[in-house]
């Protein structure tokens, strides 16, 4: 590439303050791009003190990347109900500032994003998922620079078709007004083409990566030395298919009673899932840890004998790569993008809990074969670095600008 383009990026959140995979992906990409020498300015929504004008520079440990928080009540994975609740909590303190509905707030955040973009010298705009698409569209209207809409998950994935039409409309606008679309998988590319009428030639697939850290499996496990551990990691929402995990667990326990199912994550279905485990009469074999990250999450990947990602519709599925990077034998839903990148994992339809249970049992009963599969998958993940992801993104930048 000739001259390195200056990039404006809009995202939802960044670790360590993330609640889901999008933050992890944005961090990985920003880091990868920055290592390649791309000057990057990153903006995300965050509620700021009323004394702050409208934005604030955040320190984020991302070298070469300036991260700016724009004052907003938007939170990652928010929805109408949770937004309204949040709005009611703060409206006394900050009257007439934030939008009184989720939709209005995304528009307002868009205006603020455009305002911010005016102060930034840039060659192109790169925006991630619907929450910040408005900001991308408005920044483009101001500067006339090309817009790239990155899609990590659509409203169809999150809801299984019962879409919030306002959100789907924002997605439609963002995807169609963008000069290029980056989809995290071919799986997602098809959805974007089918439901949002974006021409295939405009959509470029760039798979996510994973940070390979040194996973050192513990020789003697302190937690549950007498039991197998089967792990789920993800937000507890419809999209992630946790209910299918519980139904499979019920079946596995019939043949492998010494098994513990660990569910890491938080979300709207938390209470419902606890009740479901109790109703299935397997609550003594299911542990809900709540949201974990960092070393604690890593420890979970390390201790697991099997990892399951039962998503109903998963554009990518970084958690599966994280599990594989810890050399954990993994079962992934066929309805996922990550299954395009990994061949050494067991693949199952999310709804086929009998098959899912059978696969879990096989992994637990034949650890040698399972570990061999995991070693080979580990080698596959070694090729899936964020640097490679950044390379591919840069070639999309190149195509866009030339």
């Amino acid at each position, binding site marked *: 590439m000739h001259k390195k383009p200056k990039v404006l990026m809009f995202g939802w959140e960044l670790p360590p303050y993330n609640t889901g995979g999008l933050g992890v992906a944005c961090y990985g990409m920003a880091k990868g791009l920055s290592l390649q020498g791309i000057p990057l300015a990153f903006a995300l929504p965050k509620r700021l003190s009323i004394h702050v004008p409208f934005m604030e520079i955040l320190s984020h440990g991302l070298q070469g990347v300036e991260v700016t928080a724009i004052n907003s009540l938007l939170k990652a994975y928010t929805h109408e109900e949770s937004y309204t609740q949040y709005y009611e909590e703060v409206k006394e303190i900050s009257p007439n500032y934030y939008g009184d509905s989720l939709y209005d707030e995304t528009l307002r955040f868009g205006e603020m994003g455009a305002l911010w973009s005016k102060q930034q010298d840039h060659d192109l705009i790169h925006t991630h998922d619907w929450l910040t698409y408005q900001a991308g569209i408005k920044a483009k209207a101001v500067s006339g620079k090309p817009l790239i809409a990155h899609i990590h998950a659509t409203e169809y994935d999150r809801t299984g078709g019962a879409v919030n039409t306002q959100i789907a409309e924002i997605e439609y606008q963002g995807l169609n007004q963008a000069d290029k679309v980056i989809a995290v998988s071919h799986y997602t590319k098809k959805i974007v083409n089918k439901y949002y009428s974006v021409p295939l030639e405009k959509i470029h697939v760039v798979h996510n990566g994973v940070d390979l850290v040194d996973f050192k499996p513990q020789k003697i496990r302190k*937690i549950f030395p007498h039991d197998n551990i089967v792990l789920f990691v993800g937000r507890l929402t419809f999209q992630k298919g946790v209910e299918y995990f519980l139904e499979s667990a019920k079946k596995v326990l019939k043949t492998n009673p010494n098994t513990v199912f660990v569910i890491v994550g938080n979300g709207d279905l938390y209470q419902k899932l606890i009740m479901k485990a109790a109703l299935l*009469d397997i*609550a003594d074999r299911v542990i809900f840890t709540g949201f974990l990250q960092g070393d604690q999450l890593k420890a979970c990947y390390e201790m697991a004998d099997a990892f399951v990602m039962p998503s109903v519709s998963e554009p990518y599925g970084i958690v599966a790569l994280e599990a594989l990077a810890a050399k954990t034998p993994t079962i992934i839903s066929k309805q996922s993008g990550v299954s395009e990148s990994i061949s050494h994992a067991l693949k199952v339809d999310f709804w086929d809990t009998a098959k899912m249970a059978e696969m879990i049992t096989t992994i637990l009963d034949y650890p040698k074969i399972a570990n061999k599969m995991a070693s080979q998958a580990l080698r596959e993940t070694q090729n899936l670095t964020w640097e490679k992801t950044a390379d591919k993104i840069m070639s999309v930048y190149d195509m866009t600008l030339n």
Partner: protein
Amino acid sequence: MSSIALYFHVHQPFRIKNYSFFSVGSDSNYYSTKSSKLDNKKILEKVVSKCYLPTNKLLLDLLKQHPDFKVSFSLSGLVIEQLTQYAPEVIDSFKELVNTGKVEILSETYYHSLSSIYSKEEFISQIQLHRKLIKETFAYETTSFRNTELIYNNEIAKTVEDLGFKAVVAEGVDKYLSGRSPNFLYQPKDTKKIKLLLKNYQLSDDIAFRFSDRSWSQWPLTADKFVDWIKTVGKDADTINLFMDYETFGEHQWKETGIFDFLFEFPQQIMQNTDFKFLTVAETATVYKPVDTIDIREFTSWSDTERDVSAWLSNPMQLSAIKTLYELEGDVLETNDDALIQDWRRLTTSDHFYYMSIKESADGQVHKYFSPNENAYEAFTNFMTILHDLRQRVYTKIERN
């Protein structure tokens, strides 16, 4: 002649702390000492100063001034343990009460458990442990029995009769009285000797629950008024049984409500202006004869509007937690490991299951008031994670043996 049986229940559970998944296998201390809302020591010290010490003193004065005044108590093993550890002066003041010779102590399960529903063997073990503790602490031999939260049915009456108890107390549930009065002794079905005393829930709850309720048409409740009600009810009664939590005085009903003045005045007015006597539970059972047999097959209790066991055992979380707990019983006892057995038994305490209730309405508010947890789901996951650690300890121990 008619009489009044005043009986108070004293109990504090060992509340469990917020227990993380990562503690499984490395932290076998399940009870909270530091974090503010869960701190057992702090909670106990608060109840000691607000209720136990002032109420004991008040009752001691009454007992000393009035030869005819009598009162009955039960203290769970857990509250005795905690008082011995954190506030031994309260144990001394209970001893003073017992030493007046006019105070009866009743037996119950040491761990304030639901074992009467889940395991007869454990139920009997916990009663024996409690008897032993009462004997060691107060040099007192019990003859009457109260079960956790007044949980009762025919079967329980038979079991405790076999253990030699002469009297048992229960809630006066209308459904089983079918028109009869709670103010007489009854003979539990299929028993020979043991007598059943039924709580007069109207008059008891006027004090325990409604005393400070300003929306109650009878508020404020004065000693005069209450004694008038007793006289009216007493026209056709052998015994009026006023049973309640001891924490009613100063803790559930704050000092500012006038509850202490009430407790000091109403017995004196009874003794000065009426023919009523005060009797202990055991004396009541000796003085009167049962008027009828009573057949109570399902479990009754003094909790919630249903007065059954749904406060602890109705939703799937409660049922799976208790099932998991009692499935471990055999293995735990087999380890012969005292610490392990004690931890398991402390988890049998009914309060843990009460915190897992998801009942709406007024009862739900009461559950919330007593719960140290954010919500029922948190109480449940916390309890279950601790059970995982306990199960792991049991396996490790059995493996070694």
